[in-house]
């Protein structure tokens, strides 16, 4: 089913479990990365499961006015907001713990370490910058789609992302990272 377009998979997903899984394997990893960057490692499973079940239920009403990816990331963002209201974000120490675990178990330790550091640095950003940055870098969305999701001006999105990057560069530099 991998050769099918999103629209074809969406049409099939309403009845076909394999089509739904193909669709979610295509877009889900970026949604997972977005969720992880916003709510932290310990909450990502809860958020993603809620998101997938919501998507599964909502697909029958999905009319394709927005791209599926944009819709999925909007749902993911809403699930993250709901989680953030209920749970205190992970402390920086928790990220440092994940960091050391990653170093032991992952093949690409250097990249995993950098990503963990970025996620850790994101926790120091204001939420509005964090979500804009995450939608850009983790979800890989265009600025226009981010503006649509966050319901704000394009210039505002660019400004938030720019400020987030500046803060992150500072954070990463303080941790000894050099590009």
């Amino acid at each position, binding site marked *: 089913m991998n050769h099918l377009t999103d629209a074809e998979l969406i049409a099939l997903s309403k009845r076909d*479990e394999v089509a*739904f*899984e193909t669709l*979610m*394997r295509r877009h*889900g*990893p*970026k949604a*997972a*990365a977005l*969720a*992880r*960057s916003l709510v932290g*490692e310990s909450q*990502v*499973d809860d958020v*993603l*499961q809620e*998101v*997938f*079940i919501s998507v*599964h239920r909502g697909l029958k009403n999905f009319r394709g006015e927005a791209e599926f990816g944009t819709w999925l990331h909007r749902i993911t963002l809403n699930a993250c907001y709901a989680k953030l209201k209920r749970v205190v974000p992970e402390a920086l120490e928790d990220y440092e713990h994940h960091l050391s675990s990653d170093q032991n178990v*992952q093949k*690409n330790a250097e*990249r*995993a370490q*950098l*990503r963990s550091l*970025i996620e850790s640095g994101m926790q120091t950003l204001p939420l509005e910058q964090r979500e804009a940055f995450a939608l850009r*870098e*983790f979800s890989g969305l265009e600025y226009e789609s981010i503006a649509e999701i966050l319901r704000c001006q394009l210039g505002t999105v660019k400004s938030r992302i720019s400020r987030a*990057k500046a803060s*992150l*560069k500072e954070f*990463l530099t303080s941790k000894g*990272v050099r*590009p």
Partner: protein
Amino acid sequence: MDNPKDDPWDNLIREASQPDQRDMAAVDRALLKVRQHNRKHQIWFRTLQGGLATAAVVAGLSFWSFSHNSSGGVVGEAEAQLAYDAYSDAAGGW
């Protein structure tokens, strides 16, 4: 450095932000949860269907039983009438 695309930090962050094995694994776990959710939903739906079917059968049987008893009464009355007629005939004959 004027072009943001040439900023090595941007490239570094973009590369590190790509989905990794943890994200794939989280997707697998979420899909498993969806499957379980669907199974539960199917079981619930079938149980409801079974319950409704049982209720329909019980209602049908009750109605049939009620009708049967009522018609039994009619048959009983008819039998009594026949017995009375037979008695009357016999009495008349007497």
